């Protein structure tokens, strides 16, 4: 089985390759990259005018299976992923039950195998039930296929427990992914603390809650030598701490979401609960720092924190509605619009943040188009304009803050291990 992707601009940040060329795929691997390749008996994909990139990797999604299949399943989440150009997604453990043992890890992997769409990498819990007290069976989850550990959504507040988790994760060469939030400082908060929370009378979550927790994790990373990945970084202060940690040679990486790059707490005016997520939309000043950190490399990856919720659950009072928005199918359009078209960040850098950046952070064997690499490929049109219509999403949920937005940049086709899993109409 051979596939020839012809005439696209191939961007492979890992190898530094960036020019119009052909890509030959054979038996699920990249066979050759070069000019005017021709081969008999191959399927041809005409990529003229399009960008050909390594398949996108999303380090942070919530698939809701097992337990809340009415919001999303592994299969529906994987379908949304490939429609958004993501060939690999990392599934956070806050399912019901929590993915804190090997049987849940295996269950997720089995479901993903049945779906045959995106690669799904389970993230195991740090602590049993993500209760923040006893360590989960981390090594067994790794054996079963977990590629990182996290208590996302329920930050480990006990610093001694976190220290032990890091030491143990280091033994097993797993990255510790932390949702950084001092939950005493942020207690009861539903949005960013600032002018808009004051105006709206909604309880705010101070940037100090995130900054405080990030600084603790940086310190513990130094103490333990563990690899630490800061999930959905959202404040200027936290970015600064990660930058300094990297400067000192610590193994600290971080990701940012498209919504934190595109929106601010001003969007909460009007009380649309699709502006409610955790960490919350921050100030314009924070947003601008995040964009600069993308540009200069302080942030390693774009991750969606895709968090599906049923419309009935979101249609509640602002303080009762659940946190979270979906993002797999809007991510590329949002980041290209905001980072490339509006902020002038090079496509190479953006592709890097969607491919080899996240692959390195979690140590995944993907994210490049070098000869011999696994042929996960995303082909997109960087200029194509489209309007977000949540009713057309493959995801089971509709909770997007970008409904009705005009975006520039859209996925044309997605291939996983050389197999076409999505093609735009």
């Amino acid at each position, binding site marked *: 089985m051979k596939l020839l992707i012809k005439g696209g601009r191939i961007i492979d940040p890992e190898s530094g390759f960036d020019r119009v060329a052909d890509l030959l795929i054979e038996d699920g691997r990249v066979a050759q990259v070069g000019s005017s390749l021709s081969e008999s008996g191959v399927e041809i994909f005409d990529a003229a005018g399009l960008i050909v990139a390594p398949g996108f990797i999303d380090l942070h999604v919530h698939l809701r299976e097992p337990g809340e299949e009415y919001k999303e399943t592994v299969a529906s989440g994987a379908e949304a992923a490939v429609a958004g150009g993501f060939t690999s997604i990392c599934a956070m453990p806050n399912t019901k039950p929590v993915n804190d043992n090997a049987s849940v890890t295996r269950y997720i992997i089995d479901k993903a195998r049945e779906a045959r769409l995106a690669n799904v990498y389970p993230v195991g819990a740090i602590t049993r039930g993500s209760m923040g007290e006893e360590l989960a069976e981390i090594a067994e989850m790794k054996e079963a296929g977990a590629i990182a550990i996290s208590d996302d959504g329920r930050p480990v507040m006990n610093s001694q427990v976190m220290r032990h988790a890091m030491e143990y994760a280091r033994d097993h060469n797993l990255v510790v992914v932390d949702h950084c939030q001092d939950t005493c400082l942020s207690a009861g908060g539903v949005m960013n603390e600032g002018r808009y929370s004051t105006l709206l*009378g*909604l309880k705010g979550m101070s940037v100090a809650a995130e900054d405080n927790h990030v600084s603790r994790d940086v310190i513990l990373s130094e103490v333990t030598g563990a690899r630490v990945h800061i999930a959905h970084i959202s404040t200027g202060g936290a970015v600064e701490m990660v930058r300094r940690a990297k400067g000192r040679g610590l193994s600290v990486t971080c990701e940012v979401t498209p919504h934190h790059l595109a929106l601010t707490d001003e969007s909460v005016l009007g*009380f649309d609960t699709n502006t409610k997520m955790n960490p919350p939309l921050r100030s314009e000043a924070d947003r601008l720092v995040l964009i600069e950190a993308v540009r200069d490399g302080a942030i390693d990856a774009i991750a969606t924190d895709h968090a599906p919720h049923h419309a009935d659950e979101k249609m509640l009072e602002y303080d009762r509605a659940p946190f979270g928005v979906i993002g797999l199918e809007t991510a590329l359009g949002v980041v290209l619009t905001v980072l490339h078209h509006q902020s002038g960040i090079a496509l190479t850098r953006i592709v890097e943040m969607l491919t080899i950046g996240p692959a390195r952070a979690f140590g995944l064997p993907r994210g490049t188009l070098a000869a011999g690499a696994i042929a996960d490929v995303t082909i997109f049109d960087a200029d194509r304009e489209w309007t977000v219509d949540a009713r057309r999403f493959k995801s089971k949920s509709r909770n997007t803050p970008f409904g009705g937005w005009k975006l520039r940049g859209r996925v044309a086709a997605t291939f996983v291990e050389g197999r076409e899993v999505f093609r735009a109409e």
Partner: protein
Amino acid sequence: MAFNHKDLLGIRELSVEEINSILDTAESFKEVSRRSIKKVPTLRGKTIINFFFEASTRTRTSFEIAAKRLSADAINISASTSSVTKGETLIDTARNLEAMAPDAIVIRHPTPGVPHQLARLIDAAIINGGDGAHEHPTQALLDAFTIRERKGRIHGLQVAIIGDIMHSRVARSNTHLLTKMGAHLRIAGPRTLIPTQYEKIVEDSEGSLTVCDRIEDAISGSDVVMMLRIQRERMSDAFFPSLKEYSIQYGLTAKRLELAASDAIVMHPGPVNRGVEISSEVVDSAHSLVLDQVTNGVAIRMAVLFLLAGGKTEAHSD
């Protein structure tokens, strides 16, 4: 009359003309309250629902009296008697309310934004009767009415607002209204109860807004001193140590009131915690307009109901 909104959700969205138009309308309704038969047929056949998710006898009664004096049918639904339970979505709530075919719905809710969310789902006029710590527009309007009645103007007055600003919708609505009307506001209270960037919540206006470090700085030279109610439960969240300490540090005593202009007026949205945020001596003094506020509340609510539920002609009479 310059008032073309479907709803009254907050003061922030209103123009000075619209505020004046409500105040002027209330002027004419205040006269009704002085008659021996305190009733006009203006809203005969109209249905007003008072939908209260929070206990508030004072505001609910004021709206109820206002509706009755306009000959409207007033229905009270409180959270305990309605079918509203945890888990019911706002869409269900909206449908249940619409089923009663109301012309206006007054909503009081502990969460900011609920009147705004419901206003998008319901055809009837929505009146915000207080949403969490966000806005309480009719309270600010009655306060403005009371100040204007006593002082003859709002423009140029020095107004102090003292106490728990953080949890106060009264403070926010008054801040918007009084600065729009050209008053100079000085805010004071324990720092724990002054929300971040409060001085930045108003748009450009003829008035001004300053957050003071000391209550004395806020009161000095003030024409109006507005005291806010302090809730006992704030102690458990470590906002301040005790009611005793609060009253000593931040309470309005006759001595502190001496710092204000000699003809200063003292206001409080009620119910008053005597001896805590304000001393009995001050509440009962000639400076205090607490009872005028209650009387004027009815006139303001009549004006608001009239402007929002009144002017419309019957739709589809066939």
